């Protein structure tokens, strides 16, 4: 059983692409080998910045021969049919066999595919893999047409067993396969040949290449933590950075340095971000003070001076970078001291949020208005929520966030505190963005909640109003994430919120802002140009409308004026308002459509969210059909109770009993054209089971009504569960549709009571099964 070794040696592969490239190489090669009829016992892929390597163990030496027989047309068939058969089998006439096929003789093709050698198969599979490799971005180089992530220099492809090693021959765009590779670019650049994977890995290690990315990561982490420990510090864990750095070096050499005294006053997030983004340094923290005081850099070289030159160079670059960061920090603090945090936000008027939704300033104004409305619903002080909304995005204008966008929110907290704002307002700068993803924490401070909800709901209604909803996999404005954020904010804090009302309020704020702006600009126009005003007024007067009287009044006022060359500002404003008011009316009427549509979107997202928590979609539908479904907390409480109820024995059976009652009742109602909804009387009960059911319904009703009032769905449902036995016994003993019309009607009315009671808990008709 030979082993297969493949190495694709190239110029530096981007670190972020190496992980997937390893998986792709392994999958494409092993799938190809298996498809061609080979089997193998194991495979693993490895990589360094300059090579992608795959080792396949225990490969079968050749594929099995395959014999295939195909029946063709009858010997009497027309020439065309025979020719077609020859074409499809790739055989010639003399290769066909004639055999008896029951109804006369027919042609038969016997196709023998001989077994193929592993080397031949591997060569074909490797060539196809290289030519079709799914790099996120690939390129051409030189005068060739081959594509690879960066120029491909050599291909090592070897089959080896106890008997020795054999190069799998292939040639791709002039790159011939061989058995040689190279070591570290600077430490061991010579080429050398290998005979097996073990030989390859061992020689690479001697040539200063650590082939296994996990080994490099472990080595880096081990040396980094040791170096930090020796300096009395600890390395701040960062798995992503570790993977990336391990993908940048073939021979990791860890070097540790101290951050200059000048920079220790910078916020730890700033130090960490600057060092990570620009230099790919790990941060080292002083556990006692919590400050970031040192860094670890990983070199790809092992110089005679033990890295003194490298460390000094890195230290110098770091100082320049941190000087920039310090400059930003001090500049920002000065701005805050001079103008307050709100002053910092001034420039946001010039930053477009979306060309149809105005500037960031417009958006902040809307969020402020909405946060003020939401505040009392979530237990926040409206003024505090409004203040938080006004400053929450101010840091977008700070120099620091301009340089490091990922520090948005984080810097806001620092700057808000520097401005002396209350903690709740400061924290909202960061928390109003949360939750950022399904695993991110949900804020619990009422001020943060109010601003977070206002921010997300403003975004949603805004994009809904301009018809930019997510479709399929396209969600460029991350609206699904915003909706899930709202859902998690509501559920996580058990907020009792009429979501429809909040959406409505949000859209009203938008409309008001939009028309406020257009009235303002129209007013200016009219003040400056009398004829525009007069013409607009004439247009309005010509329209039949509710406000004609008012318009006529303005008109008369204008005509009475001696000087008909200009309007007063007051008049201009009135005309502008009357003009804009027509559009505003249309938009206001449309709010309900947006509200309902967006609410349905929330319900969809909620279903996805609850499905992940194990609640069936029909259970949610049963609860969605109940009144008050704008209140997501109530909705989920009901759904959770119903879901738990259905998992009990009584629950499942009661649903069957309910469905049976409901079917009989519905059929009877349809047939009779009446609704049996009142007047079941125990005195017409004939059977003991009927009387028991009457009593049980009385008891259940008495228990369910108060439980529902208290929103204790669990109690309501267990009271409902007590109906199971009486309902089952009733159907066992009694025929509903008897000849006695009085008894029949009484029983139908009794079923109606079951229906009413059960439907008061959830719309059980929506349940499946």
């Amino acid at each position: 059983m030979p082993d297969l070794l493949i190495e694709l040696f190239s110029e530096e592969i981007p670190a972020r692409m190496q992980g997937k490239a390893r998986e792709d190489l392994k999958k494409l090669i092993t799938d190809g080998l298996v498809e061609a009829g080979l089997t193998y016992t194991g495979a693993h892929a490895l990589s360094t910045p300059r090579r992608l390597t795959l080792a396949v163990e225990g490969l079968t030496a050749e594929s099995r021969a395959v014999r295939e027989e195909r029946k063709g047309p009858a010997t009497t068939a027309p020439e065309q049919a025979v020719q077609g058969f020859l074409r499809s089998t790739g055989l010639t006439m003399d290769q066909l066999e004639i055999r008896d096929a029951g109804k006369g003789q027919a042609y038969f093709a016997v196709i023998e595919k001989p077994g193929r050698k592993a080397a031949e198969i591997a060569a074909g599979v490797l060539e196809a893999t290289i030519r079709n490799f799914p790099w996120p971005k690939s390129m051409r180089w030189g005068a060739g047409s081959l594509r690879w992530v960066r120029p491909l220099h050599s291909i090592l492809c070897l089959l080896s067993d106890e008997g020795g090693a054999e190069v799998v021959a292939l040639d791709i765009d002039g790159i011939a396969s061989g058995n040689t590779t190279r070591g570290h670019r600077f430490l061991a650049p010579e080429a050398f040949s290998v005979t097996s994977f073990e030989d390859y890995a061992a020689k690479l290690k001697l040539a200063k290449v650590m082939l296994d990315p996990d080994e490099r990561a472990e080595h880096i982490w081990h040396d980094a933590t040791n170096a930090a420990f020796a300096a009395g510090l600890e390395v701040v864990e960062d798995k992503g950075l570790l993977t990336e750095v391990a993908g940048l070096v073939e021979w990791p050499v860890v070097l540790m340095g101290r951050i200059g005294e000048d920079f220790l006053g910078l916020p730890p997030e700033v130090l960490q971000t600057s060092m990570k983004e620009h230099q790919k340094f790990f941060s080292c923290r002083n556990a006692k003070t919590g400050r970031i005081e040192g860094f670890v850099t990983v070199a790809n070289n092992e110089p005679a001076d033990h890295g003194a030159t490298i460390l000094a160079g890195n230290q110098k670059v770091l100082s320049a970078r941190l000087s920039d960061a310090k400059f930003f920090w001090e500049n920002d603090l000065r701005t805050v001291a001079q103008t307050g945090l709100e002053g910092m936000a001034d420039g946001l008027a010039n930053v477009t949020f979306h060309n149809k939704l105005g500037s960031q300033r417009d958006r902040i104004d809307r969020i402020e208005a909405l946060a003020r409305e939401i505040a009392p619903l979530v237990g926040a002080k409206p003024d505090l929520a409004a203040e938080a909304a006004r400053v929450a995005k101010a840091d977008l204008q700070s120099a620091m966030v301009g340089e490091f966008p990922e520090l948005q929110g984080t810097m806001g907290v620092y700057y808000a505190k520097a401005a002396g704002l209350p903690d709740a307002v400061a924290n909202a700068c960061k928390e109003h963005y949360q939750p950022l993803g399904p695993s991110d924490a949900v804020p619990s401070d009422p001020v943060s909640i109010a601003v977070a909800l206002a921010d997300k709901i403003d975004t949603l209604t805004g994009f809904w109003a301009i018809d930019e909803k997510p479709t399929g996999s396209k969600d460029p404005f991350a609206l699904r994430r915003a909706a899930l954020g709202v859902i998690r904010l509501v559920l996580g804090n058990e907020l009792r919120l009429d979501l429809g009302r909040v959406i409505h309020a949000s859209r009203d704020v938008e409309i008001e802002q939009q028309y406020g702006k257009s009235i303002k600009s129209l007013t200016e126009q009219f003040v400056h140009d009398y004829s525009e005003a007069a013409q607009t007024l004439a247009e309005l007067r010509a329209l039949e409308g509710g406000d004609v009287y008012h318009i006529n009044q303005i008109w008369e006022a204008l005509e009475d004026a001696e000087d008909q060359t200009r309007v007063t500002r007051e008049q201009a404003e009135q005309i502008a308002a009357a003009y804009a008011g027509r559009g505003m009316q249309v938009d206001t009427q449309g709010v309900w459509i947006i509200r309902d549509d967006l609410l349905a979107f929330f319900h969809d997202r909620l279903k996805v969210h609850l499905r992940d928590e194990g609640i069936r979609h029909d259970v949610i539908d049963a609860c969605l059909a109940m009144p008050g479904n704008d209140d997501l907390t109530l909705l989920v409480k009901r759904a959770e109770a119903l879901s738990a109820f259905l998992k009990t024995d009584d629950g499942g059976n009661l649903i069957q009993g309910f469905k049976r009652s409901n079917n009989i009742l519905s059929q009877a109602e349809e047939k009779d054209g009446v609704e049996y909804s009142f007047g079941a009387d125990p005195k017409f009960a004939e059977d003991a089971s009927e009387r028991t059911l009457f009593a049980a319904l009385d008891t259940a009703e008495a228990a369910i009504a108060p439980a529902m009032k208290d929103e204790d769905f669990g109690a309501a449902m267990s009271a409902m569960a007590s109906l199971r036995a009486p309902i089952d016994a009733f159907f066992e003993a009694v025929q509903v549709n008897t000849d006695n019309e009085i008894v029949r009607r009484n029983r139908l009315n009794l079923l109606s009571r079951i229906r009413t009671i059960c439907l008061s808990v959830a719309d059980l008709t929506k349940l499946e099964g």
Partner: protein
Amino acid sequence: MTTTAPRSFQEIILRLQTYWASKGCAVLQPYDMEVGAGTFHPATTLRALGSRPWAAAYVQPSRRPTDGRYGENPNRLQHYYQYQVIIKPSPPDLQALYLGSLAAIGVDASVHDIRFVEDDWESPTLGAWGLGWEVWCDGMEVSQFTYFQQVGGHDCHPVSGELTYGLERLAMYVLGVDHVMDMPFNDPDAPIPLKYGDIFRQTEQEYSRWNFDQADTGVLLKHFEDAEAECERILAADETDGAGRRIVMAHPAYDQCIKASHLFNLLDARGVISVTERQAYIGRVRALAKKCADAFVTTEAGGASEGRAA
């Protein structure tokens, strides 16, 4: 290979010139127009197109009006030098050639940490992109290394390898200088030693003031539109002149494109271009660059005759 450390800014430039000349590059002189980067030189932008082999190296003074800091910032300048190497088709040992150039200016790879870190290059104004790296030396970016894939909307066949060295930054590192203005320009022991600041501090101040406060935006805007119109007019002209010669004027048209690009940069520095307008202006320059590229590939230097023969 030179083993001694260079002593001045100009020595580093001279060593790079000598090195790349020894590797077979035509050592060109800077293009005589204001450009934002060495890539704008027609020796790169236009010569990267078409099938003709090409190898050139040159210093290109580059201007980025928004980066002006009145000569006060240790690393930022509105006028600086780039060293540019372009070889088509990219040779298989381009990385080794590049490392050789670092050795030539005294960067010994055995004591430093030299790394090729992913950095894809894109020029929205030139409609160009390529894949490559920024090269780090001990954590500092010292060069940009790119394999051109597309220029002016045309696929590059064959592919050019492009190297760009930010000369001031590289030289400061090699010479161990912290502020660009303190860097020796000529030899420190020369009879008249000159520092970078002796030559450029005053011009940085003058241009910073002009770029940020004084440039007449009305005039700049007019010049932009004139350049744009002239570029289009030149390209729309009949390919055949009065004497019946076919002469496509790709280079004169491209000059106008470069002008428009620089005028846009000046307008940007004056802060009169809003975020939304920005994209539109970049799009207008790109449209010119594409048309120039379209024209160039129909010319002799653009490899048109080989195309026709094939």
